[in-house]
């Protein structure tokens, strides 16, 4: 059984029909990517999974539980963390406080401290700046913080929303390397990206989304050689 399963999901922002029947699955241990143009519904899909957006129709199942029955703040507890688009670090909280917020649903103090250290080990830059407010970090550092923060909840499934957005290319490489590393430690990853090339080179499988609909799904390798993907998203 798939770890995450979306079936025919329809979501709206007010009157705007953002998702028009999205179906996708993510299996345990995978990196799955969702690629598509700006406004195609990538972020809406993630927001629907994490409960901020409530689908009008369709089902979202995680490890057999129906996610639509849970309010957004309880989804983290089930084992799903999200790195939001634009990073969404709490600019006026310190780096350490940001990480503590990531572990909000946990109560094991020692475990939390341990994981903060783990986060610092993953991103040594954060350790140097742990008492700085997050707003003073550079874009790349904020992305690292957002990822470290999401890991603080010890998620089984990590949702990444455009981790490469607006970053210098050199940072993009290292961010994607980190994604692979995180995956190797056993965290399943659903990656939403505009940078289709990087995403497909990192992921196992991919879905292509256009105006709220999945138009293509295949292994990442096959998608890279798909003509339509090449012309629309890889710029060949």
């Amino acid at each position, binding site marked *: 059984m798939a770890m995450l399963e979306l079936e025919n999901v329809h979501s709206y922002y007010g009157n705007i029909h953002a998702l028009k029947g999205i179906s996708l699955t993510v299996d345990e241990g995978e990196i799955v990517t969702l690629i598509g143009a700006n406004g195609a519904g990538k972020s809406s899909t993630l927001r629907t999974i994490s*409960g901020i957006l409530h689908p009008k129709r369709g089902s979202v199942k995680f490890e057999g539980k129906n996610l639509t029955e849970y309010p957004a*703040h309880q989804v983290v507890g089930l084992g799903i963390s999200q790195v939001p688009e634009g990073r969404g670090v*709490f600019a006026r909280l310190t780096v350490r406080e940001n990480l503590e917020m990531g572990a909000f649903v946990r109560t094991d103090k020692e475990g939390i401290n341990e994981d903060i250290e783990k986060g610092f080990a993953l991103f040594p830059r954060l350790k140097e700046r742990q008492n700085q407010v997050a707003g003073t970090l550079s874009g790349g550092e904020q992305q690292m913080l957002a990822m470290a923060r999401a890991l603080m909840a010890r998620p089984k499934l990590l949702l990444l929303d455009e981790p490469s957005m607006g970053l210098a290319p050199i940072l993009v490489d290292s961010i994607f390397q980190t994604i692979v590393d995180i995956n190797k430690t056993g965290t399943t990853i659903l990656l939403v990206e505009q940078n289709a090339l990087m995403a497909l080179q990192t992921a196992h499988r991919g879905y292509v989304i256009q105006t709220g609909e999945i138009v293509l799904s295949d292994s990442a390798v096959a998608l890279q050689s798909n003509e339509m993907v090449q012309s629309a998203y890889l710029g060949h």
Partner: protein
Amino acid sequence: MRLNLKNLSIVDSLLWLIRVVVIVLVLWGSIAGLTSGRVDGEGWGQFFVRCTTSTDVGTIQCMGKYSAETWRDFFIFGLAQGGIYALIALGYTLVYGVLFMINFAHGEVFMSGAFTAYFVAASFSDSGFMDQNPVLALGVVMLVSMVTSTIVAVLLERIAYRPLRRAPRLVPLITAIGASYFLQYTFRGLYGSGKKVYPDVAILTGKWMVFGIPILKTQVVVFVAAVILMVGLYYFVQKTKTGKAMRAVAEDKDVAMLMGIDVDRVIVITFATGAAMAGAAGVLYGLLFKQVDFIMGFIPGIKAFTAAVLGGIGNIPGAMVGGLFLGIFESVGPSLFLEGLGVPAAYQLKDVIAFTMLVLVLIFRPSGIMGQNLSDKKA
């Protein structure tokens, strides 16, 4: 930076003009007020030497028509009253920080606590409990006030504000105004329209010597209590998990939700915390000004809002500083520069000072004394 005259529009010039006029008026008034003690025929040098070298400040009329002691008393009273403003201001600032909404009914939350606690205080006083066990009694009175205010605020949030969280900003503001009147007249209906006089507390009559200065005991207690509460709140918001969650919700509700924070609950806690501070301020107000009635929330409410804006709304230390500053300014200002300008019965205009300050701050520095500009961020 070079001044580009072409870019200086008419509006800017007018705003500069207003600034200059206000500053000149205040300075002129203050100087005129302070130097009005100069004896006829006395030279400026003589006057200055006499005033600065004299040790007997109590008798020599240097600073206007008041003695240095009077000025000091004005200042200390300003501190005490400023502490109350600051406590109420915290409620505005907390709620604004989290919801970007002016809780216009916050003054009534303050009133509800003070008004309700009066009955407890009065009965304690009648039964003699207040005099036998004043600390415990006052503690209970304060607790009742804080709990009442909290209940009112939580109900207010649940019934009037929560359904409107995504409504255009005008809607919750109007709701708050409506709630404000509703609460005023509910408490009028419940407790009557007359003024109630807070009982005297025996141990709080008279003065204490603080650093060699005699100060009314009530003023000391009010100020100290206000400071303790504010420091406590600051600690709560800075250090506790809930406090951090509050700050997280203030920055980004969606992301906070993604962290597993129950945003609704945090908002209720925010209202409750602000209300508890207002309830405490209510009892302190009762101790300081003695009188409570159903309409008492309005003016302190607006003043406290001014204080919150002054310190940079959304900013907790700002609210404290703003409250104290406003309290002192209001207490000292009328005698300092309004009388200097020759305004009769200047104390009548202390509200004008507060409101003028509010207006000027909002026009010229909407970010407040120590806040960053929130309106920029939202644009």
